[in-house]
């Protein structure tokens, strides 16, 4: 890889950390709170070194009290702070679901617009690391179901850095999902590093024959699949949704209207999930442009198993994406 002088290459983990550091340097009101974010440096090492720079007040280790500290984040946001609450992983966020769904997402509405909650919640999501059935969920679709939240899913180093600052500007709660497999991935961060929008999907690779629609941890495998398809003479466009709520329908539909074929790739379970929502929208809005049924590649309907081969079989893979794409263009039965 040639490194341009105005680009820094770093890992997704480092990019997220730099995003937090940058936000905390720029705004006194921003603080980070969660289990093991301080002394330990974050369950995934994201906040390593931040305690030393900002001190215990602003890099706040919490007890094991997901509901308590997420709710405290809501209250602190109401009180004029800009908290970043880290929930170690998505599975534990279920212990705080009351606060997220019943309070953060509803306060603005049930107060008739009087109280908004400028809170950012970050959590690690996803499978693929043999962590078995309780540590491998992808519940992005679950959260994207909830009016009152904004749900974002950074898939690149640039988004890992830049989405946080924009999320902190948002007057409403934003949930950021960081796929666990991304932390070690290296990528380019344009310099000077800057905030990025959290409104729009992005075309990550142009193509003409079909559109692969994905986000987060699945972007990489879609890009790999697109490479393989290209070798086979199939030109796939790859769209990274980036923001799962509200969905940027326009970018998706513009692409599908041009390619006439769509495959949605999401690591959540297939039923009633993110992929179902996107596929339904494509069917609603692009039905007459479609030359093939909308395809889906999602997780198999099973709690994620521990053995590697079973886990891999349950998750979206390059092979499954390629096969779905080939079906869409009529290369397979």
């Amino acid at each position: 890889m040639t490194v341009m002088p105005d680009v820094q290459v770093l890992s997704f983990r480092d990019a997220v950390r730099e995003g937090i550091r940058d936000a905390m340097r720029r705004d006194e009101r921003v603080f980070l709170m969660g289990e093991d974010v301080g002394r330990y440096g974050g369950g995934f090492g994201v906040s390593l070194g931040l305690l030393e720079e900002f001190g215990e007040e602003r890099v706040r280790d919490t007890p094991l009290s997901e509901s308590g500290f997420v709710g405290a984040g809501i209250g602190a946001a109401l009180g004029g702070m800009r908290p970043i609450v880290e929930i170690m992983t998505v599975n534990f966020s279920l212990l705080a679901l009351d606060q997220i769904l019943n309070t953060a997402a509803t306060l603005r509405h049930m107060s008739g617009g009087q109280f908004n909650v400028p809170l950012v919640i970050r959590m690690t999501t996803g499978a693929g690391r043999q962590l078995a059935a309780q540590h491998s969920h992808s519940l992005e679709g679950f959260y994207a179901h909830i009016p009152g939240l904004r749900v974002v899913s950074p898939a690149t180093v640039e988004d890992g850095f830049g989405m946080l600052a924009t999320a902190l500007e948002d007057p409403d709660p934003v949930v950021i999902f960081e796929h666990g497999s991304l932390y070690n991935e290296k990528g380019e961060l344009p310099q000077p590093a800057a905030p990025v929008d959290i409104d729009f999907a992005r075309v990550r690779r142009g193509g003409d024959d079909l559109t692969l629609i994905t986000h987060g941890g699945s972007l990489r495998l879609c890009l790999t699949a697109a490479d393989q398809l290209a070798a086979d003479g199939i030109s796939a466009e790859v769209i990274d949704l980036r923001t799962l709520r509200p969905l940027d329908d326009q970018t998706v539909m513009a692409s599908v209207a041009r390619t006439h074929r769509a495959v949605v790739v999401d690591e959540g379970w297939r039923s009633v999930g993110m992929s179902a929502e996107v596929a339904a929208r494509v069917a609603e809005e692009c039905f007459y442009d479609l030359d093939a049924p909308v395809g889906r590649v999602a997780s198999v309907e099973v709690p994620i198993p521990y053995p590697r081969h079973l886990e891999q079989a349950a998750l979206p893979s390059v092979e499954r994406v390629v096969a779905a794409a080939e079906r869409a263009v009529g290369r397979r039965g």
Partner: protein
Amino acid sequence: MMADLPSLYRQMLRIRRFEERCAELYSGERIRGFVHLYIGEEAVAVGVIDRLTPDDAIVATYREHGHALARGIAMDAVMSEMYGRTQGVSHGRGGSMHLFHAPSRFYGGNAIVAGGLPLAVGLALADRMQDRERVTACFFGEGAMAEGEFHESINLAALWRLPVLFVCENNLYAMGTALARSESETNLAVKAAAYEVPSWSCDGMDVEAMSHAAERAVALVRDSGGPVFLEARTFRFRAHSMYDPDRYREREEIERWRERDPITIASTRLIERGLMDQEALDAIDADVTSEVDAAVAAAEAGTDEDVADLERHVTSGGVRP
């Protein structure tokens, strides 16, 4: 600053008459949804809120009409909210259980048992981090003390020494579940004290006793900067909500508590001390009743929100689901 007994009495009576009218309006189907009356417990909100300054914050439950009124939120706006009118304190979006009022730092109105406690801790955390010396008073029933959110919240407040006043309104029943059927330790102050939080109990039927206990509690929160737990021993005279047939309590128990009606205790004392005579009490009642009449008239005359605005107030940026 402590109000005198006549004005504490008046505050309690405003709540009583307001809620009695709510019950009638409910039967008349002018008000719908879940409505939880505070009748019998008025001394608690009145006694505590009187000790707060306008800068302090309040977090309450679905049983919060009394707290809203005691805080000084206009009765018109509260009644209009009961009707779901745009003139309501939450613009009609909340109803009985979700009264919010930014200018008086009134943060609801949470209908999840114990759901407001973490929020109170966060408000206090924001004050601490921004060097503001304010108190956040958080009201909840004894039923909330069995919830994890109670334990998480009081632990956080104690651990981080945050200025939260936890006010447990122990009315002995969580819906139909008596305290002894839900708590291993029924002395709630003892339970809270396990978190190294100064904790004590007081008579929630006597507004003066309540006021003194609250004075001490609020002062301790302000002076120490840390949390205090106050258990107010009280009783709800009515059913849990308008839906509740109230089959789980003995009539004698309710009657026994009615003998300690906070409003009667206060009025008797006013007369005994020669502060007021029956005529003066009647005048207050007439005054309060006309305030309620006016609130009902305002709510009746209020406007319903246009259905075209259905998707308002979801996010700040408008609608794009």
